């Protein structure tokens, strides 16, 4: 059994950033496998560019303020002044797409972090404890898995949305921060919670399977015979070796989560004005497809390409980290 990320010495080396002496570590093997995967590398480049554009470029003056309306220049075609043209209120579409992308990507990353935390904890405990705890947790996962996911998320976000104001007030009162600085965060919080609270199911199953597999290995037995406490064995010895599958499925969770955010926003239950996301822009574009189809085309293309890249990258990571499970 020489699966990668199952050898403790390797992950130890990777963690400290030192390659093993003589011979290549399995992680550097994985990196070189990933480098050879052209689709994954192109996706990686594309994602880097999109993230840079969305998070850095809006601060440069070449991009206009997405909120500034120019009612005399409505639905303009692309030009030197407006690279993607303008929308039905004369707002620069490029600026709107970049600002919207920032929210979409932020929601994707933070929500995935939420679901990662829950999924890893539940999966690890179930896989390590076994017996009744395992059976109970996995029954819970089974039941949650049979729920109509989108429906529950819509209910959740309706609830969370209705408490946004109160939450903003609370945080402002508690910390004394500027209300305008708190509001964007609490406005997105419903999405993080609603989607994150239900998207960890697959991840927990995967973590459980790898923890179960690892818990029977010799190095865990060694750790146990040293008398280490359970939490130390689990978090310092087992989980670092399960990082591979966790990274892969976290990457594959991001596009799913972004799709959910966009769906909710499309239904008017996600990101609320004055903020917008790709989902909101696509909704706006679909409503005005007849007068100006570019409003639908540009946000959709960027959104779909981002999702595609994340999927390619996730598949590439899976093939690189675990060559045995690759598609062929």
């Amino acid at each position, binding site marked *: 059994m020489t699966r990668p990320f199952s050898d403790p010495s390797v992950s130890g080396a990777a963690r400290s950033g030192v390659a093993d002496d003589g011979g290549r570590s399995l992680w550097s093997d994985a990196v070189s496998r990933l480098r050879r995967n052209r689709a994954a590398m192109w996706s990686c480049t594309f994602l880097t560019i999109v993230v840079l554009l969305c998070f850095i470029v809006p601060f440069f003056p070449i991009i206009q303020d997405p909120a500034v309306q120019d009612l005399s220049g409505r639905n303009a075609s692309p030009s030197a002044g407006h690279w993607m043209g303008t929308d039905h209120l004369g707002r620069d579409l490029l600026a709107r797409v970049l600002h919207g992308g920032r929210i979409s990507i932020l929601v994707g990353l933070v929500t995935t972090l939420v679901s990662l935390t829950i999924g890893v904890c539940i999966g690890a405990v179930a896989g390590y404890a076994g017996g009744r705890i395992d059976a109970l947790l996995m029954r819970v996962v*089974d039941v949650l898995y049979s729920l109509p996911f*989108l429906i529950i998320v819509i*209910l959740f976000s*309706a*609830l969370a949305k209705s408490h946004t104001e109160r939450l903003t007030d609370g945080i402002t009162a508690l910390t004394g921060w500027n209300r305008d600085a708190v509001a964007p965060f609490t406005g997105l919080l419903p999405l993080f919670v609603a989607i994150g609270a239900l998207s960890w199911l697959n991840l927990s199953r995967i973590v459980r399977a790898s923890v179960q597999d690892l818990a029977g290995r010799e190095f865990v037995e060694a750790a146990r015979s040293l008398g280490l406490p359970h939490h130390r064995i689990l978090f310092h010895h087992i989980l670092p070796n399960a990082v591979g599958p966790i990274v892969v499925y976290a990457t594959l969770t991001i596009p799913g989560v972004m799709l959910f955010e*966009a*769906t909710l926003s499309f239904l008017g239950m996600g990101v609320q004005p004055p903020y917008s996301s790709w989902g909101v822009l696509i909704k706006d574009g*679909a409503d005005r497809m007849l007068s100006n189809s570019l409003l639908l085309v540009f946000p959709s293309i960027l959104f779909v390409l981002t999702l595609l890249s994340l999927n390619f990258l996730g598949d590439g990571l899976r093939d690189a980290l675990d060559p045995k499970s690759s598609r*062929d």
Partner: protein
Amino acid sequence: MTRVILQRLLQGLLVLFVLATLTFFLVRALPYGPFQDERAVPSHVRERLEQLHGYDKPLVVQYAMRLGNLARGELGTSLKVMEGREVTAILAQAFPVSLALGLMAMLIAVPVGVAAGVIAAVRRNRVVDYAVMAVALLGICLPNFVIGPVLAELFGRRLAWFPVSGWEPRDLSFMILPAVTLGLGSAAYLSRLTRTGMVEVLHQDFIRTARAKGQRESWVVLRHALRGGLIPPVAYLGPAFAATVSGSVVVESIFQVPGIGRLFIKAIETSDEALIMGPVLIYGSLIVVANFLADLVQLWLNPRLRSNS
């Protein structure tokens, strides 16, 4: 075998119970109740209304009453969207529409997805395979709220083959565009799973034996390989149907289809509890039934599962 079925039914009941509980408390936690209006309702009127519908009792008592009513099959009355009408009556009209749409979507998705997957697997690592898998990935990443408006524009307005939106009972032409939009995602997933399953089976010894006997390749693929290759996609049929059913919420509002998805969205906007509970439980039961049927088909396809259970 009987034990497995009983176990599944019990789990299905548990799922519905959890769903009803979750929905009840989530809706009740909403700050705006069914008796709040844009116009201020006089307080004595409101009190009377609350009394009439049992909203003045403690929440736990209301919850117990609600569960009791649900167990007897009484869904209550809509208080907001369709004031005063029985939810059962509303759903009796809306549900057949959604069901027809969902079944039509699956009817499109399953053959298309399976056929694409089989073709890709047979022509593995050739141009056809790459093309099919690229389209499939695109199908997964293209959200239905992008495909829907584009299809409506292209086939509805420009080519005028199908109606742009709306619904006529017993008129298939209204069903095509929404059903295609709804089924595309599932077709894409199914094609990927079928390809994986087929590739694995085509490597096995009994396939080599069949070929060595001189059987035609099409016979080998369809008669011998397909049964084993279908196991992964069939395992996904339950979740696929669930995704299709939930997706109808989006598609019904794009194409103005009068199904339970659109009712659900309207009910949420006005926190009409009875009318939220109805569609949620229908969605839940559909998923439970679909998972159950998928399990049965899996047992039939895979004899190894039978001996274990």
